[in-house]
């Protein structure tokens, strides 16, 4: 039988015999039998392309190919792309241009591109696009991937690695492992003897349940060693972002509040656990009428989701300044709008995964995460042990965007490993990940604004209800952050901005790039266009007139200092705006049913937590043999913090980036650098890295008795300190080393200075803000309701670009997500829990993007730098919507603007006349 003989094929040039079952997915065989974890699994359904490998030179999805089909064939994986000791030209082009961010799609992209380059050594951009069309990337916006593939195809020399630290386009330090497939993501590593854990989840939005005879079930499945229920949780069966809101159970007790909520965990051998059909597990469901949507939740007779939350209202937020009634009354022009948005899925290509190991009275969890220190607290509480006994080892994170700020696999893995005293691993399937993970809050917003005859905003009134789903998660953050941003980045005399977070039986809505601000921006940027039109002013000039400037007071009463460069952003775009508008006026808006339109939108974003201490600490060590180690607790989720922290520290210290290695994220070896959220790492952890570098420098200079301008140089174990031509040598190997082997250490901590907000939201919510303006050119097919984005221009106030390549990558990726938000992304529980039906932009949906970095320096930022992660996304959807409004004369108010919605809106406008 073939099964016993094994399946023979060439794997990366070597003849192999695979012993796995021949009907097994090739992706699983490559990863589990051959240990080639460079081939990633994002969906097991052909939808993401992360598993793309070459079979006889053509790209295929390894997840859709049974092992038996490669018998006698040639299989090439990312591990086989590199030459003997050097990455291929394609891989080097990916590195040089920053085509890999989180890196989870990178192997698939490389394989898809390599198929093309073998077939067509000189492809056109259109051919590259076609070749990459089957691989999704959620991070990069595809532009740099396209550029890298085209660059690799030509003969032009690849750009050389630049010298220098801050400001240099350094190659990502974690890039080489990402382009070779060596990087270990959550599913890529586990002890070989690890048991597997699988959660059984609610198929209902709301239901009571009882668990039947588990012993009998176990007797039928000998490989299942333990079945965990809520009763097995040793500590607190609840987690959540806020200390007083640990309302989300690790395993549900009696009642489930959303589809996908876990009720029990099977732990056993991988074969046994995988073989279980959920239908045969004895759970008796009693479905209850679900509360879906904001209206249902606020209805007077609505069932209450949580005790102590009357009316299902989780929280309210509010900022009030001046008399908004009077201000609107005095306005020459007024505009009002109501908009509605949907649940949006993060759709990181890496599903949640990890493993846990118990070591005596300690537990170690390796998992994909954005927030190792928060994970540590949660795991400790769930186990009922002190946090010091918990060690979180973040895996390389295959995309987060806010979705991996809440714990996912960590607590239940820890419980299982703790109770069984054996390593336990889990990998969520794509449908599980989509059903269970947090979402962007659907928002329902009503907003109104007025301006005087000179075009100055007088007042803004804003109310937003946010569907926070079944559990609190980051709902309070959204409710507090939105009112602070709801006016848009403009001077306004009076404002009243209120929000509510509303519990429903939807999926928990949490953190997603912008914490509600992208939804609010859709409203305020629509109002800005409407007011400008009513006053007969140019839309960009109207924004320019109202743009916040240094010295202005925000509607929170905060006086802004330097580092407010929105005016510069708009001025940079103005000539392009004029040119493009003239072009449209001259060449017309399009032929036949096609209509073009140009839109502009602005945004501001407070960096770091709202009115809350959120410090970071970084440490840097110098070893006896002259190596620098940055103990960097900031998780790199693809945005590049693992690179720029070193650039910043190197700049402060005065030693080259090349001398550094890093310890990343490990809570046992790094200090708390907070979570990778709120665009805070560059500003907050960046300052900590700078201070750590300065601290080490100070110690070195003291040791050398040298002044502040001395130059440092490392020569193996000898550190040379040169001042005014005088050289002093420090023989590092003579100094005493600590447990880590360090002979000198520097440490730095930084916490952004904020002040609490009073009941009217007056205070200093953030120490620094990012600003941006973007323009979108779109083409609408008015007969089909489809929208193509033709081009985006983005001007971003980034303070200082520590690494321009990485900053551009953030902007391009944010724009791609903004396009998705505007045009196609809408998660409906139970309907599109997969990447087949839930659509995110592909390489063909992201147009050319022209980026303008405004680098005026922020006084608080490390070397002037500030964050850009969230700012990148916020203005895109509003700019696209404004462009659609201009193209069609109809303003879309329901997001995403799917073809059927847009066509219906156009038809409704026509009947209204």
């Amino acid at each position, binding site marked *: 039988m*073939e*099964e016993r003989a094994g399946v023979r094929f060439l794997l990366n040039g070597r003849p192999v015999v695979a012993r796995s*079952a*021949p*009907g*097994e*997915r090739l992706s699983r065989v490559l990863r589990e039998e051959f240990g080639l974890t460079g081939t990633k699994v994002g*969906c*097991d*359904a*052909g*939808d993401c*392309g992360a598993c*793309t490998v070459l*079979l006889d030179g*053509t*790209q*295929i*999805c390894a997840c*859709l*190919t*049974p092992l*038996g*089909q490669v018998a006698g064939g040639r299989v090439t994986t990312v591990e086989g792309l590199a030459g003997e000791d050097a990455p291929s030209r394609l891989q080097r082009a990916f590195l040089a241009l920053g085509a890999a961010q989180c890196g989870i799609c990178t192997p698939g992209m490389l394989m*898809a591109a390599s*198929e093309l380059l073998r077939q067509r050594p000189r492809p056109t951009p259109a051919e590259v696009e*076609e070749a990459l*069309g*089957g*691989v*999704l990337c959620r991070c990069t916006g595809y532009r740099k991937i396209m550029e890298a593939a085209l660059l690799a195809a030509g003969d032009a020399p690849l750009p050389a690695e630049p010298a220098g630290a801050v400001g240099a386009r350094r190659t990502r330090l974690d890039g080489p492992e990402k382009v070779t497939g060596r990087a270990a993501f959550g599913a890529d590593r586990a002890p070989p003897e690890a048991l597997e854990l699988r959660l059984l989840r609610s198929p209902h939005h709301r239901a009571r349940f009882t668990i039947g005879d588990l012993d009998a079930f176990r007797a039928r499945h000998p490989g299942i060693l333990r079945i965990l229920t809520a009763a097995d949780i040793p500590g607190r069966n609840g987690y959540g972002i806020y200390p007083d809101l640990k309302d989300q159970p690790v395993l549900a007790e009696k009642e489930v509040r959303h589809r996908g909520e876990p009720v029990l965990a099977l732990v056993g051998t991988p074969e046994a656990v*995988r*073989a279980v*059909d959920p239908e045969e597990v004895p759970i008796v469901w009693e479905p209850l009428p679900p509360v879906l949507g904001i209206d249902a939740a606020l209805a007077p007779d609505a069932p209450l989701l949580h005790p102590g939350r009357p009316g299902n209202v989780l929280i309210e937020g509010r900022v009030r300044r001046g008399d908004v009634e009077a201000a609107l009354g005095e306005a020459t022009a007024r505009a009002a709008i109501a908009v509605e948005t949907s649940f949006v899925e993060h759709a990181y290509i890496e599903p949640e995964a990890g493993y846990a190991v118990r070591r005596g009275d300690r537990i170690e969890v390796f998992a994909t995460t954005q927030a190792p220190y928060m994970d540590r607290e949660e795991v400790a509480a769930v186990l009922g042990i002190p946090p010091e006994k918990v060690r979180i080892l973040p895996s390389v994170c295959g995309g987060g965007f806010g979705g991996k700020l809440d714990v996912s696999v960590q607590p239940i893995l820890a419980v299982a490993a703790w109770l069984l005293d054996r390593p336990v691993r889990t990998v969520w*399937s*794509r*449908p*599980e990940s989509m059903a269970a993970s947090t979402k962007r809050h659907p928002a329902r917003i009503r907003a109104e604004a007025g301006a005087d005859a000179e075009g100055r905003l007088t007042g803004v009134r804003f109310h937003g209800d946010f569907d926070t789903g079944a559990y609190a998660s980051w709902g309070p953050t959204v409710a507090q952050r939105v009112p602070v941003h709801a006016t848009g980045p403009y001077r306004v005399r009076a404002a009243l901005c209120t929000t509510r977070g509303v519990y429903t039986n939807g999926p928990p809505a949490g953190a997603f790039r912008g914490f509600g601000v992208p939804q609010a921006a859709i409203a305020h940027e629509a109002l800005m266009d409407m007011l400008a039109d009513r006053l007969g002013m140019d839309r960009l000039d109207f924004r320019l007139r109202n743009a916040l400037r240094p010295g202005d007071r925000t509607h929170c009463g905060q006086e802004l200092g330097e580092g407010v460069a929105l005016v510069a952003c708009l001025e940079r775009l103005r000539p392009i705006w004029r040119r493009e508008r003239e072009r449209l006026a001259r060449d017309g808006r399009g032929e036949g049913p096609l209509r073009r339109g140009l839109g502009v939108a602005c945004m501001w974003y407070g960096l770091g937590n709202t009115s809350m201490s959120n410090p970071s600490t970084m440490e840097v060590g110098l070893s006896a043999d002259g190596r620098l180690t940055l103990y960097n607790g900031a998780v790199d989720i693809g945005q590049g913090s693992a690179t720029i922290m070193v650039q910043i520290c190197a700049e402060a210290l005065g030693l080259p980036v090349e001398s550094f290695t890093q310890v990343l994220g490990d809570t046992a070896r790094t200090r708390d650098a907070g979570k990778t959220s709120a665009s805070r790492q560059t500003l907050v952890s960046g300052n900590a890295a700078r201070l750590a570098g300065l601290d080490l420098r100070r110690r070195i200079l003291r040791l050398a008795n040298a002044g502040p301008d001395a130059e440092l140089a490392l020569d193996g174990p000898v550190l040379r300190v040169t001042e005014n031509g005088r050289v002093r040598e420090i023989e590092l190997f003579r100094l005493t080393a600590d447990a880590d082997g360090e002979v000198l250490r520097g440490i730095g901590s930084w916490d952004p200075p904020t002040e609490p907000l009073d009941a009217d939201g007056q205070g200093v919510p953030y120490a620094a803000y990012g600003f941006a303006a973007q323009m979108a050119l779109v083409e609408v097919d008015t007969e*089909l*309701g*489809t929208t193509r984005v033709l081009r985006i221009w983005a001007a971003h106030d980034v303070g200082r670009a520590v690494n321009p390549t990485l900053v551009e990558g953030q902007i391009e990726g944010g724009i791609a997500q903004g396009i998705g938000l505007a*045009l*196609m992304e809408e998660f*409906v529980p139970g*309907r*599109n829990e*997969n990447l*087949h*039906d839930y*659509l995110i*932009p*592909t*390489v*063909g*949906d992201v147009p050319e993007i022209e980026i303008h970095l405004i680098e005026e320096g922020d006084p608080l930022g490390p070397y002037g730098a500030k964050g850009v992660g969230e700012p990148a996304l916020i203005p895109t959807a509003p700019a696209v919507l404004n462009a659609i409004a201009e193209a069609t004369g109809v303003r879309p108010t329901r997001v995403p603007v*799917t*073809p*059927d919605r847009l*066509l*219906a809106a156009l038809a409704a406008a026509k009947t209204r006349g």
Partner: protein
Amino acid sequence: MHRYERPKDLETALDLRAGGEWQVIAGGTDVFPAMVGRVAPRPLLDISGIEALRRIEETAAGWRLGACLRWSELRDHSLPPLFDGLRKAAGMIGGRQIQNRATLGGNLCNASPAADGAAALLALDARVELRSRRGRRELPLAEFLLGNRRTALAPDELLTAILVPASRGEARSDFLKLGARKYLVISIVMVALVLEGDAQGVIRRAGIAVGACAPTARRLPLLEERLLGRRLDEPLAEAVDGGVLAPLSPIDDIRGTAAYRREAALVLLRRGLEGLATAMPGAA
């Protein structure tokens, strides 16, 4: 793990098929996605190794497309303009990875209402060849596709070939797919059009099919009738009105509303006909 067989010849495959409950698999691009988080419900009978099912042959009656022909093979094969629409559809099924494995036969046997291949082949008057131990039979595609995920395939049968009649005159065809993004997208609506004209440029045969608007792709006989006898350089789009959509019964789903599907189908039909008219030699 279940048994898995990958015979090299059709006879063995039919023997196995007759002898048990199998999950037939060709490209696997519909089979595996249906098994996410689950193990295979039945042993796998993999027919992708049967070379004889992967050929494109020209016969006296027309064309014979092997059931295991991959979409990429069809896409890259040089064929007369009659097949332009089908080949265009081939290039729009999933991404390259999918096209490199997915087969024509799988697309038809999976019988998704949104199967692009089904609409394109229906417009070509395709017939399917089914074989079993018991023998061989042929069915018009329209009789093979019974409904959403339902076909006339008997449990011991395999789909072995798709038979496309030759065109008698000058033929042109096109395929228009509407999705909510550029690549890797299931159609909201798709339209397949085939027109054959005589030497005078008069339409002698019209095959028009719409997909994703009913449990299976549907032909539009009224529209086809209206087109017959018209000259190819006439403004053909005029023949399209709401009445021609009678065979359709679209539904509201995650990809679009029923009303939208009707509207979009009309637009695609008009555009398709306009495009074909101008593509015709002798057209104005």
